[in-house]
């Protein structure tokens, strides 16, 4: 890996060279009822809008690679029959400026199931392969448990990763494009003093994690405690609203709807993101529901993220960003649910 360093004043210059493309980054979207800013990944038109020191965003950046609604195909229909048209919805390449390690890890996990499987999906692939990612280090928040999920650092899946060293940025460079961009601003090779400062910074950050999830033997424990009473208790709290899936950076489940044009000459097949907590998730034609009760659906969500995915890919589907717990209307958080299943809650 190649490491480079540039002074903080150079950040706007980096933004400017990247701004030849469309930039998506953390911006202040609104204020909550206590006057605390809420952040969101939006198109950034001006460097001044960018908030690289953001704590975390309420919603992950997934609307740019797993849109909530997406047309999969369209049909033109006439008396003779119909023709199918497929568009993978590739637009301009996007630069993600300021993604945290958890969100980049989320993309790497999605790659495993959406790209590195039997049927790679072009709709995600076209966007994923057409991104330029600038990662940035973060300060752990009270709801962050990424360290326990192994997602507090990221090794691949980005182009460059910035770490704030006070007066300068330490950059990990992973792609030739990133190297070329850094060549166009005032940057230099990293030297020993930068390495030492970087390691110090990393150590400081690790000490700031407060939320804990014990994942030891979790796959087995989830199997052993499949019929545990705690699931019913959480199920009684759960409103089955699907907010957790909405904000989750790795939830990719979807449903498909067909729409007929008003002139009856065309039709569209539209994918919309779904949530396994919603009532009709596992309902089949004829009305049989394989998961009729809310606690079964909630359990399934944990079962998929923390057991099933581990079995299939040797890692959890959860990155520990804690967004679901923050967004949950019933205050259900992952650390609490897992602790209770382990009999420690």
């Amino acid at each position, binding site marked *: 890996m190649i490491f480079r360093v540039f002074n903080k004043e150079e950040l706007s210059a980096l933004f400017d060279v990247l701004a*030849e493309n469309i930039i998506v980054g953390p911006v202040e979207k609104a204020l909550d009822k206590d006057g605390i800013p809420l952040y969101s990944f939006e198109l950034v038109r001006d460097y001044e809008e960018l908030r690289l020191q953001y704590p975390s965003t309420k919603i992950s950046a997934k609307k740019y690679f797993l849109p909530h609604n997406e047309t999969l195909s369209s049909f033109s229909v006439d008396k003779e*029959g119909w023709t199918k048209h497929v568009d993978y919805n590739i637009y301009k390449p996007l630069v993600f400026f300021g993604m945290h390690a958890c969100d980049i890890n989320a993309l790497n996990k999605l790659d495993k*199931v959406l790209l590195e499987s039997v*049927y790679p999906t072009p709709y995600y692939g076209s966007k994923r*392969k057409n991104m330029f990612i600038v990662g940035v280090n973060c300060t752990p928040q009270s709801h962050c448990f990424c360290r326990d999920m192994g997602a507090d650092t990221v090794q691949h899946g980005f182009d460059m990763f910035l770490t704030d060293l006070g007066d300068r940025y330490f950059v990990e460079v992973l792609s030739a494009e990133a190297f070329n961009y850094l060549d166009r601003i005032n940057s230099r090779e990293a030297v020993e003093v930068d390495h030492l400062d970087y390691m110090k910074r990393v150590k400081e950050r690790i000490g700031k994690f407060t939320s804990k999830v014990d994942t030891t033997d979790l796959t087995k424990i989830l199997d052993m405690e499949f019929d545990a009473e705690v699931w019913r208790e959480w199920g009684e709290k759960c409103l089955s609203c699907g907010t957790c899936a909405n904000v989750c950076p790795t939830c990719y489940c*979807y449903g498909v709807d067909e729409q007929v044009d008003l002139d009856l000459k065309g*039709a569209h097949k539209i994918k919309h993101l779904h949530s396994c907590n919603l009532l009709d998730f596992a309902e*089949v034609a004829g009305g049989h529901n394989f998961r009729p009760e809310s606690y079964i659906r909630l359990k399934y969500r944990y079962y998929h993220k923390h057991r099933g*995915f581990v079995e299939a890919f040797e890692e959890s589907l959860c990155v520990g960003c804690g967004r679901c717990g923050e967004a949950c209307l019933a205050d259900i958080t992952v650390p609490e649910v897992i602790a209770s299943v382990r009999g420690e809650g």
Partner: protein
Amino acid sequence: MNGLKFYDVLTEKRAPRVRDFERFEYSFEAEISNVYSLTETEKLYQIRISDPEKRQRFTFRPGQFVMLELPGIGEAPFSISSSPSRHGDIELCIRATGNLTNFLAKVKRGTMVGISGPFGTSFPLEKMEGGNVMLIAGGLGLAPLRSPALSVLENRNRYEQVDIIYGAKKPSELLFTYLYEMWRKFDINLKIIVDTPDETWDGPVGLITEPLKERIAAYGDALKTDTYAIVCGPPIMFKFVCAALTEAGLPMQKMFISLERRMHCGRGKCCRCNIGSTYTCLEGPVFDYWSVMNLKEAI
């Protein structure tokens, strides 16, 4: 921008290659060439892939399914009910129960549909050669079992005893009645039982477990060594049938069941058919009983 050149991040290396995704979009235009009414709610659709070359090249194994699509109406998975030897002239047995299937119940011959697939796992009929085969179906569960049944029939000399045990709620709900006589002629031990008889019915009445017990007793020790079972039916039937067979000594890995789940893609992407992280569309719909035992909430 200070006269800077437009620099596009999209380079050749990053751009997705079409052939990376060919497999995802692989689908066929097909035509409903014939429709037969089987019962009040079930119909058998003969579907013919339009391109003769693709039709001939279309191969599947018994137990696999296809996704059938009608623009503006919907797309859904259906088990193939015909014999693999018929290639792209497939038959689907469909009950009118949802959006798409109620629409299908009204379509005429010649309607164009989209077919993609075949998807999923299949019943390992080659492995069963030289042994006895028990096909056990409840209700609409006969639809996915018709394909392995026809396949066994075409190669009847490769198998020892063949049983078809079939249960339905009412005599009027029995599927493929026209095939029963032929099956018997091909030395297949066919047992049919209904739950609620009517005046036309003079056969046995009760649950499927009764004829099953009779056959289990007749098999005796052969069940432990040379017998395979293929089971499909409503979730409640699995429990009783699989338990009875296991108790009688049929090894778990010689019992195959076909599961039903909601599916939107058939390609392991929409997550709707997921049991844990096991996709029913990729690793199923046909599972051996051992795998099912290891999947929580599978049956």
